[in-house]
């Protein structure tokens, strides 16, 4: 049986310093995050501040390759340890990566939950902008964009993570993930004006479906910053490596539509369940996956045939219809527990079907759920009204502004996107961890014992309970440390010292 798909999203945000165009983006990102953490410390006594709880890099190995080897000449990503790194009480990690603020959601147990904590991430960035305004000189403002490209050839990522069974051969994942990722952009692309692919004339592509398709050059590989691969081989499970694999997906766009995030993660999780349970009889072998990725992104009619290696062809929608069709049968045969049960899993299937039907018949019916459709409709409407050419700077500006996270400026916030998560639930997720994963233990310990935790990372917490040497509490199981499993234990412990003693006693018995 497929493993429960524990999920996470890491988003690198675009950052601008209004009023100081020459500002260093690394420093700006640090100011942003420090402002948020200081604001929390001010408003919540005892809240951990950034310098106190650091990220612990002991178990970070981004250079490990899932294929068991690293081809010569590839560059393993480096872990930057000197930049701001904060751990939040909702279990998220909020830090500076390269020249961007990045937020990694806590581990979530189902696709609805990931939408909730992804929305919470947006709120955290919004509050960070407000907090930073107080620390910046008059006339300066930090502005955050949830997008993936600056339109000038620079891209930054929105990565997804899926817990998988280590026993599944990596090659089998690759075989199905490539056609899936090439085709899923039709409902989870965030849309973009022009193209940034080397050698392409910008004006030759008025508008395309995906922000990211231009930047992918390999089918499989370890890189994330250059020669980006459709399937990333980073092998860093942040969990028991004998049992688990974490599939690190780098090809997706950051979504503003909650439904798009829900579908992106929900359908991918289902596809991976089917890979684990060997429920996909046919491999779609594309003759040229990189070329296909770009063809799909540039074809708003979604009728473009993609050549198959065996001969013949299929469109992105045909590929998605077959994955959908298998997923429905899979649900009947295996159930949907691995993606959160019948209600959430059923919703993934229903919305997936709606999206495919809409894309096939009339994409404009998806203007409240699919980002690229919402953006295209807005830009097309504006273009039509003012008689503009697609290369007009006003359309490029609207493209960027779609992703502006300021509530009074962001265009995505105005186009009528459907909401899945109510404001109260988003607010809750800003400060609280998901109860169903180990993120609950991380977040709750930080909330209850901020003074006793000196470092945290995905699979451990390090306590300083005075006297004894520092104590590392490992969390190698993503589905342990949940509220159901350790809630009453934490409630019984008034101090971190009592908690450690109770854990020691439990380990001995």
């Amino acid at each position, binding site marked *: 049986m497929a493993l429960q798909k524990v999920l996470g999203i890491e988003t690198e945000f675009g950052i601008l310093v209004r009023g100081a165009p020459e500002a260093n983006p690394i420093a700006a990102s640090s100011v942003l995050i420090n402002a948020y953490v200081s604001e929390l410390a001010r408003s919540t006594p005892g809240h951990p501040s950034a310098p106190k709880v650091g990220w612990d890099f002991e178990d970070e190995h981004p250079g490990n390759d899932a294929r068991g080897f690293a081809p010569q000449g590839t560059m393993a990503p480096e872990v930057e340890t000197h930049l701001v790194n904060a751990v939040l009480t909702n279990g998220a990690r909020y830090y500076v990566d390269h020249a961007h603020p990045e937020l990694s959601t806590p581990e979530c147990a189902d696709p609805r939950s990931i939408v909730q904590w992804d929305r919470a991430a947006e709120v955290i960035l919004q509050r960070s902008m407000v907090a930073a305004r107080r620390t910046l000189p008059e006339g300066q403002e930090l502005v955050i964009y949830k997008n993936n490209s600056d339109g000038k050839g*620079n891209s930054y990522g929105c990565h997804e993570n899926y817990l998988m069974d280590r026993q599944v051969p990596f090659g089998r994942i690759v075989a199905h993930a490539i056609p899936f990722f090439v085709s899923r952009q039709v409902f989870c692309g965030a849309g973009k004006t022009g193209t940034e692919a080397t050698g392409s004339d910008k004006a030759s592509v008025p508008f395309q479906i995906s922000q990211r398709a231009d930047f992918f050059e390999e089918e499989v590989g370890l890189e994330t910053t250059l020669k980006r691969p459709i399937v990333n081989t980073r092998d860093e499970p942040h969990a028991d490596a004998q049992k688990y694999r974490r599939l690190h997906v780098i090809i997706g766009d950051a979504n503003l539509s909650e439904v798009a995030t829900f579908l992106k993660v929900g359908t991918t999780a289902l596809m991976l369940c089917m890979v684990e349970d060997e429920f996909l009889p046919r491999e779609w072998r594309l003759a040229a996956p990189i070329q296909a990725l770009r063809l799909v992104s540039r074809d708003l009619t979604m009728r473009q045939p993609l050549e198959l290696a065996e001969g013949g062809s299929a469109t992105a929608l045909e590929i998605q219809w077959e994955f959908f069709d298998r997923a429905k049968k899979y649900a009947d045969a295996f159930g949907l527990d691995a993606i959160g049960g019948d209600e959430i899993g059923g919703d993934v299937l229903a919305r997936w079907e709606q999206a495919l*039907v809409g894309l096939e018949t009339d994409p404009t019916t998806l*203007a409240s759920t699919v980002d690229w459709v919402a953006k295209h409709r807005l830009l097309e*409407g504006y273009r039509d009204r003012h008689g503009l050419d697609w290369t007009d700077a006003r359309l490029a*500006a609207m493209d960027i*502004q779609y992703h502006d996270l300021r509530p009074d*400026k962001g265009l995505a916030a105005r186009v009528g996107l459907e909401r899945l998560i109510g404001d109260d639930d988003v607010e809750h997720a800003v400060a609280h961890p998901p109860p169903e994963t180990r993120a609950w233990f991380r977040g709750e310990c930080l909330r209850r014992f901020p003074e006793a935790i000196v470092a945290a990372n995905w699979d451990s917490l390090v306590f300083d309970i005075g006297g004894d040497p520092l104590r590392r509490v490992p969390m190698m199981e993503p589905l342990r440390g949940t509220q159901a499993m350790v809630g009453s234990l934490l409630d019984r412990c008034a101090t971190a010292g009592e908690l450690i003693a109770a854990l020691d006693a439990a380990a001995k018995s």
Partner: protein
Amino acid sequence: MAERELKKKQAPAKQDEEVVEDAPQTSDKGDALKAELDDLLDEIDEVLETNAEEFVKGYVQKGGE
């Protein structure tokens, strides 16, 4: 052979029924969306970046990941 199979799967009987039922709703929804878009376009100039060209030129990011 695979393509023939696909065609069948794409047009299940159930889907046809739904299309018939949904037709008036979809067009209502379409009209409402169109009206919403018109309203949005009426007010959007107040929100848009004032100097689009300069703004786009100034939006430069470092690569990430």
